[in-house]
């Protein structure tokens, strides 16, 4: 807390709530109390992904009015596959942004991995999976390399990754050759972005999501009950489960319609969707429920406090860069699956959009605040701008300008909410 804020606090009358047997934990009361508490948190500056979701809704309505194609099943499926690469990159970057660090080389790391992959498969005739393994190993090694220099040697991540960003562009040229281009021929790789689950597969996916969401909620409740602390009203769990089922049902339902234009039927949930959701879920689980995740937030919030509490700060930082680079490779794998070819510019231009996705979604560049879901939503906001403006046949320049504007708007919302949390704007 800043000194002014602390001074302001000390002169303020202290709240003196009734002294209950146990101090509350924010779960007390019925739905009304919970909703009130939620709005109180919002007013306190904990906006989370709300601005991004608002932006998503506004943009959705806007483009639906402006373009007759926007709300078609076909465009909806397109939007999902168009945003997948950026969603994955945004999620990758969250791990380092939470530390207040940055990885400018995330795009080209994936690019180099894919260049190596395609050369191994196409030129050296390696087995696809073995080559893919090499690609992921390159990601892990790069993350380890960045982590070493940032966490151990103490060079700012901006500098290390800027160096890699430049160097890896050269490495891509060397691997592929100037002006070279390789087509992706393996059907399994192409399938990620271009094929769909069977209709029943989509519904099974949704059923699994609903079951997991329900199972985790009730597991938590059972644990809290065993510990002897109160739980939230059970109706809130059901509201959440029903929300997942309804929203998921609408999405899967839409994607189960035939969206082909010719004789060939195109229907079902794109394969990339369950892959992305699985990684999102696992990542969120790690961040919310394991020591590694907790320490990542702690180091991002106050590294010195974490160190004094016995957290191995260097290891936490190091591993974050490894995770980021690994997921960046997944992101570029999505990209080559969609594009169908690899050229020496793979992953060069996307990285700043990935950072933008995280920031638009409400992840703070100062570290310590943000969730994977936020970056995913932010990425969809950016993708929806590209998609919608494309449908309106506006030039690419407008797209960049609007995306930039949204980014600045999002950063402003973040800054204003932070001021509100600190309270200095009101008390000065």
């Amino acid at each position, binding site marked *: *807390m800043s*000194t002014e804020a*602390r*001074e302001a*606090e*000390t*002169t*303020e009358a*202290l*709240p*003196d*709530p009734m*002294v209950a047997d*146990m*101090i*509350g*934990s*924010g*779960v007390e009361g019925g739905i009304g109390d919970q909703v009130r508490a939620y709005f109180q948190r919002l007013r*306190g500056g*904990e906006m989370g992904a709300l601005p991004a979701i608002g932006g998503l809704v506004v943009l959705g309505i806007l483009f639906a009015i402006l373009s007759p194609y926007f709300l078609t099943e076909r465009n909806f499926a397109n939007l999902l596959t168009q945003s997948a690469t950026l969603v994955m990159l945004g999620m990758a970057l969250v791990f380092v942004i939470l530390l207040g660090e940055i990885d400018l080389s995330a795009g080209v790391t994936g690019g180099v991995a894919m260049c190596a992959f395609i050369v191994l498969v196409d030129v050296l005739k390696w087995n696809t999976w073995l080559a893919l393994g090499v690609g992921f190993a390159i990601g892990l090694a790069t993350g380890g390399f960045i982590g070493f220099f940032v966490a151990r040697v103490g060079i700012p991540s901006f500098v290390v990754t800027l160096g890699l960003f430049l160097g890896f562009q050269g490495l891509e040229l060397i691997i592929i050759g100037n002006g070279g281009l390789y087509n992706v021929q393996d059907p399994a790789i192409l399938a990620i972005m271009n094929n769909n689950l069977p209709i029943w597969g989509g519904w099974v996916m949704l059923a699994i999501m609903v079951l997991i969401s329900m199972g985790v909620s009730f597991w*938590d409740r059972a*644990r*809290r*009950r*065993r*510990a*002897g*602390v109160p739980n939230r009203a059970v109706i809130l769990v059901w509201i959440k489960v029903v929300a997942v089922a309804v929203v998921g049902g609408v999405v899967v339902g839409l994607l189960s319609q035939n969206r082909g234009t010719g004789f060939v039927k195109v229907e079902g949930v794109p394969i990339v969707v369950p892959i992305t959701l699985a990684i999102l879920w696992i990542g969120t*689980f790690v961040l919310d*429920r*394991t*020591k590694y995740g*907790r320490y990542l*937030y*702690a180091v*991002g*919030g*106050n590294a*010195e*406090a*974490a160190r*004094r*509490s*016995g*957290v191995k700060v260097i290891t936490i930082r190091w591993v974050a860069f490894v995770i980021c680079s690994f997921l960046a490779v997944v992101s570029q794998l999505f990209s080559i699956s969609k594009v169908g070819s690899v050229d020496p510019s793979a992953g060069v231009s996307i990285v700043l959009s990935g950072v933008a996705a995280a920031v638009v979604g409400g992840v703070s560049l100062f570290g*310590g*605040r943000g969730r994977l879901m936020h970056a995913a939503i932010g990425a969809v906001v950016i993708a929806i701008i590209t998609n919608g403006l494309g449908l309106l046949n506006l030039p690419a320049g407008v797209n960049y300008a609007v995306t930039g504007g949204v980014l600045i708007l999002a950063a402003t919302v973040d800054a204003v909410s932070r001021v509100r*949390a*600190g309270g200095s704007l009101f008390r000065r």
Partner: protein
Amino acid sequence: MDEPLISLTGVTKSFGPVDVLRGVDLKAYPGKVTALVGDNGAGKSTLIKGLAGVQPYDGGEVRFDGEVVNLHNPREASRLGIEVVYQDLALADNLDIVQNMFLGREETKWGTFDEGRMELETSRALRQLSVRTVKSVRQKVSSLSGGQRQTVAIARSVINRSRLVILDEPTAALGVAQTEQVLGLVKRLAEQNVAVIIISHNLADVFQVADYISVLYLGRMVASVTTSETTYDDVVGYITGSKTYSGEPA
């Protein structure tokens, strides 16, 4: 008098040619508050860092519970139950109270957090110190006032079942009402049979909470007195070096 929980005898520490501690004696008793006072540069921080195991002493003897111990690293200190609450509050703003209380020692089951148990323990620790100003243990630390943060930092030592708690300037940044609260907290901490060492520049605070006062002057312990048997002026004299303590160390 009871056995001291910790007793330092002839502790020395130098940085190159500079002797910062020149044979310091210090005792702290369970259930009592010992104030450590002295002017800037007297060696208070160095003395504390040695107890925390951050900067081991060069020479002298440290007895904990009557046993000679070697505080060569922070882990050893925390194993013995020594907890230092630093002046620049070692809390992470972006985490809530429970998360801060258990940072580095989370209760897990099958690799994932047992949040319920941690909430309960936090609540219990705060209640033990009669904390009334915290509404919810799930509040983010960034939303707490300075006094509340200090409270959380001190309550961590209850969770750890610390036996010696060292508070570095706990009231330095606080207003009058919050200072009162924190001093009350210090007293209640001692009532839990914890040995408390408090460093402060504010003699009014010291006279309010401390059972014993130890005065450092240029790396030497020039006076160790019982609070009830000394005066404000005497202590100021010892701190500035204008008076010499002649009695037996308390």
